[in-house]
Each structure stands twice: as structure tokens, then as C-alpha cells.
């Protein structure tokens, strides 16, 4: 053994994460300055959706467990933040049966968003206690069942959600800057989480649960903590979403919307932040493009029948194709790395000469 040196480990994914964060900010400025009003809206919506996908990635991408209930936590955040931030007069009009105590409440939007996240996290903390002890397949089925339970509660609890009817009157608070800021923070947060010791333990447990246990990793514990954290992100993102869209109903927090988030995550690559971001971007662009195309086809009379569901169909085909051709997603299981400029790095060269 020669004199002790300090090994340089490095973080190969870090440049990509920071580059993506910078791109988001530059994109926001560019869109805000040059693009038409509609595009500013799409970009804002994209950033909120990206925040949701990244929150989903934190748990699902690192643990390998398909979290169907995720969109339910988005819904909890949306309702909680909206109820807290909307003026009493508007609430008593929009939700006639709401509990008087809830009607009277009104706090500023930013704390309302955070409390929305906390409410989602607390509910997650209670439910995950038994859930994270289930084995993988059973756990996924239970999570799906939970989504149905959440949906039934949201559509039936008249006094809180206005039942299946639309909850309206929410302030249009979420600007492009708010949404971009939240997306950037979540992106960096999700990246550092992935590289953190908690994230690493979780990824190890995804690879091999028993080996992870043998290495002294508390598999249930790391899954539990991450599930709660991921639900907090879902809750805040839900609040932001509600304050952008301003009126919504429980159907926005069900299988259809969950499928969109899952498609985004799986197409790009659930295992990495760069994959989640790329997937969210691709699917958003595709959805908007197809929606335009669908509108054009139906209005221009180029074809003599109504086109319907083009977006869903294309997304489903894309998802299946990706799962067959590239199951780990476009980016793959590892974080995207920029190719090195200036050839190989030193240790590789040293090892090459060793082998000869």
C-alpha cells in the first residue's frame, strides 16, 4: 500500500441535473419573452406536471414499486390547499354543503400549498405504515385499490370536495415563475435525494431486497420515509396545479391522469432524474401536438368522421413500444452523463497499461 491518497469518487450525474435545472429557467425566460400567451400556459402546466413526475420518481424510480395512489395524494394536496386559500364567500357559493369550520378558513396561498403537502404526507405516513410491509406485487395491487378508495372518498365527501361536481373559485396564483421555481427545486431535490444515503439504500433494496437486508439496510424503513416524502411533493404539486387550473373535480385525480404521469416517467426512464424530465417534456409536447392535430382534423373536414382519443391511443402505443424496445426508458437506469471531452480519464489509462 502506497501512501494514503484521497480517492475521488465524483458524481457522474450531477452535470446533467444542473444543466436540466438551468434549461428550465432559461426556457421560462425565453417562453415568457417570446412565446404567445398559450405557450406560457403550456410551459407553466408542464412545470407543474414535471414536479408531479419527479415526486413520483423519488419513490417509484428508486424503490421499483409502482405507486398508483400517487395521484390521490396530488388530489389531497389540491383540495387541502384550495380549501385553505379560497375566500369564504366563494367557497360557500361553490361548495354549498361544506362544513362551516372549513368555509371560515382562509390563509395566504403559499402556506396553504405547504399545508396541502403536509396533509398529503400525514395521510401517507398513516397508510404507508402497513403498506410498506407488503411484498412487491401485493403492495402494488393494494396501492391501486387505495387509489379507488381515495377516488370514492373524493367523489362522495360533499362537505369537503363538493362531491363529483367541480370545485371552483380557486385563485389563479400559479404563474410561470412559481411553477418553474417549484420544478427546479424539486428537480434538484430529487437528484440529491437519489444520490443521498437514503436514496442509495432504497435503490439497493430495489436491486436485491435480501442482499440489502444482509448489508444492514432497513428496507421497510427507507421505503416508508421515501413514500411520505414523495407524497409531500405530490401534495404541494397538487396545490400548485389547483391554483393554476382554478376549477377541478375528482376525475383529475384518477387512473387516467395517473396513466399520463406513469407514461411520462416510464418513457424517459424511471431510474433517473434526467429520464423523468425528458419523459415529461416528450409527452407534454406530444399531447399538445396531437391535441392540435385532432382539433384540426375534426374542424377542417379533411376526413369525414370524428377523430377522438388520438392522444391516449398514441401514448399507449408509445408506452408499449418503449417497454418492449427499451424497458429502462430512453435514458436508461443510470443518470444521463455528458460524454467526456479530451479522451479517457487517468485511472482507466493506468488500468489499460496494466493489462497489456
Amino acid at each position: 500500500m502506497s501512501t494514503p491518497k484521497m480517492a475521488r469518487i465524483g458524481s457522474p450525474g450531477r452535470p446533467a441535473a444542473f444543466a436540466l435545472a438551468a434549461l428550465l429557467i432559461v426556457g421560462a425566460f425565453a417562453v415568457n419573452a417570446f412565446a404567445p400567451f398559450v405557450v406560457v400556459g403550456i410551459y407553466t402546466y408542464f412545470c407543474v406536471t414535471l414536479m408531479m413526475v419527479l415526486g413520483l420518481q423519488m419513490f417509484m424510480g428508486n424503490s421499483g414499486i409502482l405507486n398508483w395512489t400517487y395521484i390521490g395524494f396530488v388530489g389531497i394536496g389540491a383540495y387541502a390547499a384550495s380549501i385553505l386559500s379560497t375566500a369564504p364567500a366563494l367557497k360557500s357559493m361553490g361548495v354549498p354543503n361544506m362544513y362551516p369550520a372549513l368555509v371560515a378558513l382562509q390563509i395566504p396561498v403559499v402556506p396553504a400549498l405547504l399545508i396541502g403537502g403536509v396533509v398529503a404526507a400525514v395521510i401517507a405516513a398513516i397508510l404507508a405504515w402497513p403498506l410498506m410491509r407488503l411484498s412487491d406485487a401485493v403492495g402494488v395491487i393494494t396501492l391501486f385499490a387505495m387509489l379507488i378508495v381515495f377516488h370514492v372518498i373524493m367523489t362522495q365527501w360533499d362537505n369537503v370536495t363538493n362531491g363529483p361536481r367541480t370545485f371552483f373559485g380557486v385563485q389563479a396564483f400559479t404563474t410561470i415563475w412559481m411553477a418553474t421555481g417549484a420544478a427546479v427545486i424539486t428537480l434538484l431535490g430529487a437528484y440529491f435525494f437519489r444520490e443521498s444515503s437514503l436514496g442509495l439504500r432504497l435503490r439497493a433494496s430495489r436491486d436485491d431486497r435480501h442482499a440489502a437486508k444482509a448489508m444492514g439496510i432497513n428496507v421497510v424503513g427507507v421505503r416508508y420515509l421515501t413514500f411520505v416524502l414523495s407524497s409531500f411533493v405530490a401534495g404541494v404539486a397538487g396545490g400548485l396545479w389547483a391554483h393554476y387550473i382554478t376549477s377541478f373535480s375528482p376525475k383529475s385525480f384518477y387512473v387516467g391522469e395517473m396513466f399520463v404521469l406513469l407514461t411520462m416517467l416510464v418513457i424517459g426512464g424511471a431510474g433517473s432524474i434526467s429520464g423523468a424530465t425528458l419523459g415529461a417534456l416528450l409527452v407534454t409536447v406530444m399531447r399538445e401536438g396531437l391535441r392540435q392535430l385532432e382539433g384540426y382534423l375534426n374542424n377542417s373536414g379533411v376526413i369525414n368522421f370524428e377523430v377522438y382519443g388520438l392522444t391516449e391511443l398514441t401514448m399507449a402505443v408509445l408506452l408499449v413500444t418503449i417497454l418492449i424496445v427499451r424497458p429502462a426508458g430512453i435514458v436508461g437506469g443510470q443518470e444521463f452523463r455528458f460524454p467526456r471531452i479530451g479522451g479517457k480519464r487517468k485511472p482507466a489509462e493506468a488500468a489499460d497499461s496494466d493489462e497489456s
Partner: protein
Amino acid sequence: MLTVKDLYASYGAINALHGISLEVNEGELVALLGTNGAGKSTTLKSICGVLRPQGGSVEFLGEDLIGKKPEAILKKGISLVPEGREIFTSLSVAENLRIGAFSCYERDRYRYDLEEMFALFPILEERLQQPGGLLSGGEQQMLAIARALMSHPKLLMLDEPSLGLSPTMVDQIFDLIATLRDRGTTILLVEQNAERALRVADRAYVLKTGSMEFSGTPAELESELDIASVYFGGTKDGSGEVTV
């Protein structure tokens, strides 16, 4: 250092160990030999807490380990390199090593340790950012050993480190085991490859269907006991022919 006394273990109704005893002293390399199903891996699992034995005692540095959780035993300084390696295939080599260091993590020491691992296993430095699953079998075995060493084990237990490796890789692994022994690492080695294991071991135990058949130095083992009888259940006559 490690004293196992009268250990009984079973998988359901099947008794795997019928009261075995063994001892590992500090700085020793002890080989535990025997055929498939003799109870070698069961012994290791019982020591590191993955399997709860039915009876007997496992004492490490004066402390009773029976009933302790695997992570607690790992913290006490016993590290197992499991059979079939069990590295984390989607994590990079660097991340695998970081997990190994979790039980005693200190940032600066971690980096020194890493440098030490690179000296022992140059290939790991070259592959540092590659996923563990892309490594060859031998490289994965090295990674598994390096990962175990990152936790500064007082006792390193290797379960069939040569299993499924090419002959040159087997040589490398045994050279490495010898190097670790010379560095003063206490090792309990389980091997099918009895001949190779005996060449590096200070002492050896031979298990046969859950009972201790023999214990002694490799030289004693070779004079007193037919390796062939251990592995094939037969005896070797003067000409070297094995009759079952």
C-alpha cells in the same frame, strides 16, 4: 475470537446442523469444507444472524450473538460475502462500495478505504462508475469482497468465493484471499474447492451432513482424512481410485 458451540439449525422439519462446534482465532484463516448440503452455508448464516439457530451458542469477542439482528452483527464486525455474490446490479461500483461502508461511515476514512480497495482491486477503479451488473463474474466477486471489506470487518466470512468462476479468476481470488490473510484479516472461508482452500488455510473443519467430521491443520487433514471420502462418500485406495 469466534466460538461456535453445539450449534443446531434447521429449515422447517429438516435438520441442517446437529450440534457443530468451531472456533476462529484472531488473524487465522479457517476453512470450512464439505459437500453440498453439509451445512456450510447454514453455519455462516447462523453466525451472521440471517438464520436463527435452534440451539447452541455463537460467541464473538466475548459477546453472545444468538438472536441479534444481521445489521447489529455487521456492526459488531462480522461481514459475510454471500454465495452468488449478491452485489447490487443496477448500482455503480462506487455506490456498491458506499453501501458497504454504511455501517461505519466517516467521510474521510471512506475515501482512504476506497483508495485502499483500488490498490487491492485495480479493476474496480477502472469500472468505478459502471453498474455492478455489467461486471464479469470474477469482477463481481471482487466487488462483493471489497464491499464487505469497506465495513472494516474483524471477521470476514466468504461463502464459496470461487463458485462459477473461470480457472484464472479462481487463481486470482485465492491469491487475493492469501493477501488478505497476510494483511492480518481474520477469515472464515467456506469452499467446495477443498484443495485450493487447504493451500491457504491455517486450520480446517470438515462438515458432513450437519456434523463436524474433522478439525485440524491442512497437513493433519490430508494425512488423517480422505478428501475423496468427504466429497464422494467413498474411500480412496492406494492407487488413488475412489470406491464408493
